């Protein structure tokens, strides 16, 4: 037992000798915290589809940035945040218009494909946007991720109670004079920014792994919002850390391990708590 603990400790310190692993852990940790928290609101507001849409809008932005020779993260961030503001302007109800959002995201994905094909460099760029490439994250992007995460968390803490109440009971909130449309808009922008930073870890196509599944698992375990958020963050963190660790030793992608861990936990919780609701 001691020997095993010692072994793990020595391999951990070995891992952190590598700067790319340090960066990956730093970015992965803040992204997991943000995704776990915003993910709870995604579940509460039934915005899973909008989440996916922002990721794919971000893909077009990232591919465009690659084509222009700008950092893909900047393209990702600006496109998905613009998308967030766009949906926010269209109004609260817009986030539930599946057909319209679907049309826009299909078009955006198409644009992304065009940009990638116009870019004569490596096809790996597209691959890493679609499936995540946390191990390659640069120090500058870690810093950017940290700053954006701090902003998201600050705003989320500020609007926590009104957001929770308006999500649960919009009509009563409106009658109480709360700005429910503004809250919906704030949520959309928070979501878009969170998606943009989470794409770096799990990629556009696996965005649900961090933004939806941990929170979906958590709401099955507790009826208290605060506990659910804590559990959701814990699952996202656990999956990210474990995914990074395993990926260090095994030649398979990090996002595969993260997705498998959150999915496994989700299945387990669904099976165990099936009859206890």
């Amino acid at each position, binding site marked *: 037992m001691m020997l095993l603990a010692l072994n793990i400790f020595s391999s951990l310190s070995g891992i952190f000798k590598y700067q790319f692993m340090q960066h990956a852990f730093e970015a992965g940790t803040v992204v997991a915290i943000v995704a776990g928290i915003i993910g709870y609101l995604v579940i*509460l507001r039934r915005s899973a589809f909008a989440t996916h849409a922002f990721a794919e809008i971000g893909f077009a932005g990232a591919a465009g940035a690659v084509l222009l020779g700008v950092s893909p993260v900047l393209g990702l961030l600006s496109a998905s945040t613009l998308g967030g503001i766009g949906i926010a302007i269209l109004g609260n109800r817009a986030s539930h218009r599946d057909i319209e959002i679907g049309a826009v995201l299909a078009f955006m994905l198409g644009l992304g494909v065009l940009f990638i094909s116009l870019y004569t460099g490596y096809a790996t760029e597209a691959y890493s946007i679609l499936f995540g490439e946390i191990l390659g994250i640069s120090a500058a992007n870690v810093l950017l991720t940290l700053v954006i995460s701090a902003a998201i968390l600050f705003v989320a803490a500020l609007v926590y*109670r009104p957001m929770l109440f308006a999500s*649960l009971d919009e009509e*009563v909130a409106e009658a*109480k004079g709360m700005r429910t449309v503004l809250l919906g808009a704030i949520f959309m922008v928070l979501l878009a920014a969170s998606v943009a930073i989470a794409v770096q870890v799990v990629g556009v196509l696996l965005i649900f792994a961090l933004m939806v599944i941990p929170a979906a698992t958590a*709401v099955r375990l507790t*009826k208290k919002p605060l506990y659910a958020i804590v559990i959701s963050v814990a699952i996202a963190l656990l999956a990210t850390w474990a995914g990074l660790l395993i990926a260090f030793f095994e030649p398979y992608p990090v996002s595969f391990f993260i997705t498998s861990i959150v999915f496994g936990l989700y299945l387990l919780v669904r099976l165990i708590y099936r009859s206890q609701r």
Partner: protein
Amino acid sequence: MSISKKRKEIQPEVVSASDLTVGYKDKVVWKGAHFSVKQGEFVAIIGPNGAGKTTMFRLLLGLLLPEKGTIKVFGASPRKGNSKIGYVPQRHTIDNETNIECIELIRLAQSGSRLGFSFSSVKEKKAAHEALKAVGATDLAHKSLGSLSGGELQRVFLAEALVSNPEMLLLDEPLSNLDLRRIKDLVGLVHDVVKSRNVTAFLVAHDINPLIKYLDKVIYVANGKVASGTPEEVLTSKRLTELYGTRVEVLHDSRGNIVIVGGAEDHHED
């Protein structure tokens, strides 16, 4: 004007409307309405689907401005966020995936509009438990909202409205989707709350029969017009024929139930 007891006469008027017309954009919903309601009265708003019953609530809540005429709530123009009003909107569904305990909703009804993060306060929790107790739903405190039956849910919504100690309750179709026994229970509960707290309650319903023995006043909305008064005054063949502009008959059975024949088709609970 009312035949209710003397005690009522000295109660202040809390809602008054004169020559009131409401509508959305170019469509008039109803017009020329006159009515007044005193503190502590139990009022039913009755009428066919789409007649503008919920519109009445939007007006009282300050979410809709009248096209013409005046309406006063507590002596002033209606305004959004009036803490004297507790509102229970008509809800077709609460997602049965919503796994949040009832007490959280009732807590948030007190502090939900405040910015900033906070852990639960003891005072808030106590008030939430008291509100649940007032509607006889203490046992639901830690149940998940998504797991409640229609009747349980209406009790929780009533507690949510009561927790801020309002002077007026607006209940939009709380009786739809309930079976007869639950309807009786809920109407009795609302009546108790009205009398014990001296709260004015407006209740929108399709069918007047389960309510009739408790009501102080009826506001009948149909055919773009509004009639109001005591049930005895309003629910007559003559008044309803005037309201609908077509022949309507009010029939009474031996147990005091009434049936309205003619007018619109959907006067019975469907």
